């Protein structure tokens, strides 16, 4: 077993633990923090089904963003759905035999990377060119885009230019999952790709990427508009009733 393989194996265990543990911890914090008041914003659904539909539209279509800014919406949507397809395509490295629908989306997934990269470039361009967005940007906002672009570009490089032996990569990944380690091919471009992915996983729970779990906990979006029909009191506010 090479030192390289051991390093990457440990790195991925660490990254996975941080990602899962960190996000689980954050979800625990969000869900255990009380919501003392009803604060849904329009269009506020009056039933739970309505809330589920609304959340669905927010997550799949970015409905509110569509209302507010068409450029951010189009770039943001390209990036996220490119990313989603790419991630789904990656399932083939983690499953044996590969699920049928994962096989089906392979050809689309291959090009989704370009959509994702184009979206990221568009978002970055706005960050640099629009004075309002430039003003609010922190270095981490730029680095996050750089990180995702780095992942996308190194991935595209492997799949279209310097082909890496994906069978070996798959063996490595399956080996990690089975706790039966296999050698990782020492391709520089692959190592760059994997390092960046591990970094992304590690920063996920301590960065703005928390918007992904966060959106589901946003009271203005997930509350049912039924304040007159149901009394809603947080535990810490009950004593006021005495």
């Amino acid at each position: 077993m090479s030192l390289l393989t051991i390093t990457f194996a440990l790195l991925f265990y660490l990254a996975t633990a941080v990602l899962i543990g960190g996000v689980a911890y954050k979800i625990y914090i969000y869900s255990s923090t009380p919501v003392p008041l009803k604060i849904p914003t329009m269009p506020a659904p009056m039933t739970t089904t309505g809330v589920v539909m609304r959340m669905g539209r927010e997550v799949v279509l970015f409905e509110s963003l569509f209302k507010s800014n068409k450029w951010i919406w189009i770039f943001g949507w390209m990036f996220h759905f490119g990313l989603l397809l790419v991630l789904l395509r990656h399932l083939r490295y983690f499953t044996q035999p590969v699920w049928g629908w994962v096989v089906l989306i392979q050809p689309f997934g291959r090009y989704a990377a370009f959509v994702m990269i184009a979206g990221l470039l568009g978002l970055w361009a706005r960050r640099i060119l629009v004075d309002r967005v430039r003003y609010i940007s922190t270095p981490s906002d730029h680095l996050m885009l750089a990180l995702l672009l780095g992942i996308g570009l190194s991935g595209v490089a492997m799949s279209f230019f310097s082909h890496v032996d994906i069978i070996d990569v798959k063996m490595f990944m399956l080996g990690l999952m089975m706790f039966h380690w296999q050698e990782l091919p020492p391709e520089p471009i692959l190592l760059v790709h994997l390092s960046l992915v591990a970094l992304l996983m590690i920063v996920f729970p301590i960065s703005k990427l928390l918007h992904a779990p966060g959106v589901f906990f946003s009271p203005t979006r997930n509350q049912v508009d039924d304040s007159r029909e149901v009394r809603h009191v947080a535990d810490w506010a009950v004593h006021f009733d005495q």
Partner: protein
Amino acid sequence: MAASKFEVPELKGYTTIPLLQKGASANIKSFLANEKIQEDLGFPGELVEDWHDKAIEKMGELLGKYRGLRVFMDACVHCGACTDKCHYYLGTRDPKNMPVARQDLMRQVYRRYFTFAGKFFPKLVGARDLTREVLDDWYSYYYQCSECRRCSVYCPYGIDTAEVTMAGREILDSVGMGQKYTNEILGKVHRIGNNLGLPGPALVDTLEGLEEDIEADTGFAVKLPIDVKGAEVLLITPSADFFSEPHVESLIGYAKVFHAAGISWTLSSMSSEAGNFGMFIGNYEQMHKVALRIRQAALELGVKRIVVGECGHAWRVAYSFWNTLIGVGAGADDPFAKMLQKQLDPRYPQPAHICEVTYDLLQQGAIKMDKEANDHRIITFHDSCNVARGSNMGGIPGGQFILPREIIKSVANHFYDMAPETVFEGTFCCGGGGGLLTDDLMELRVKGAMPRMNALKSVVDTHQVNFMATICAICKAQFTKVLPYYEFEMSMVGGVHQLVSSAIRLDPNK
């Protein structure tokens, strides 16, 4: 036009996104509350010595009590979608009035003290220590937000800057930096029962005077009853309705509606205020204490229904919070709330907005209108922010947009909406809400009104609109002051029930 010390924006009939101009409104600061005002509310009289630690401690407390704040601090991706949505940014060009930047004033501190990244890599994530400079910025810019929630509608995660502003004000109050305007008024409600500090006897006098005026005007003895035990309806209305113009015209309108429909009703001298400034400072305890007067009045008078007059933030507190705070509503299983809910008539929404009452009566044919009485008016409707953003009417989706418009159309012949992006859920705030309706913020109020004034100008130019109806006491007061800066007549603004008042038939035989 009123002479002003600042430049009044020029109206084009539509609003464009300005380039930012750093520090453009840094000089705008509302007066601090003095020791007396602060201490009356139980807040420190002046900035406490250990304000830094106290503020951070308070912030931790709020993060633990309000999930919204917690999620909003983490979730923002700095996408920028909200940056052009605030009327104060559009009007002042100050980048700190962009909703995300306003949040960032707190988020920077949150990151520094409460997150891993901010503790170890502050520069990278834009985290900052809580310095005196930051605290002063909080005071300036959390009192340049009207808590109108327009930004929340447009944020992909619904991040509600109003919640952040409220938390900011709550922290400031807790270390001794309160705002004179809001906190002084809260003191008055606690002492006297309404925001204006109008004592019971004066109120009774005013109402008697109004009854005489109405009778002289119409020949009908329309009553404005107060403290009547056993009345069907308790009307809770903003105290401005009692004697400010044009507010009082709407009060007369409500009285005529009750009169024509034969509904017995009453005001309360002990609880003569719908507005709840406790919400403005994000203080649950204050909000609760102010609301309790309404519960007490309802119980003492034994009323069956509670109806709320034309007031935006008040309707938000009533519709969204009263059930939580004082049990006005339905569906409770605790003794505190059940006691009141048993008394209230379940066939009506509790609380009900006066527009819901009037609309229902119109639907039933229980009141009749002579539309021609409003023919001299060409009307538009300004959706008040706190109603529009989430305080329903009529129990139908978007009812708070539909009901007032339907009422206007039933009482008048000429109605035109303003540009779609400036009404309904995307409405622009009048510029004076959320505790900013004070003369020391006149510059901000005038500039913040610009997007609404632009939309108004457009319908004035195309349809010769001469009346902007609204259902909020703050909107009415703000526009009365601000319209002249933009060379409009101040009498252009008025209430929906002012229109009802002109058109309603009082003679039961006709």
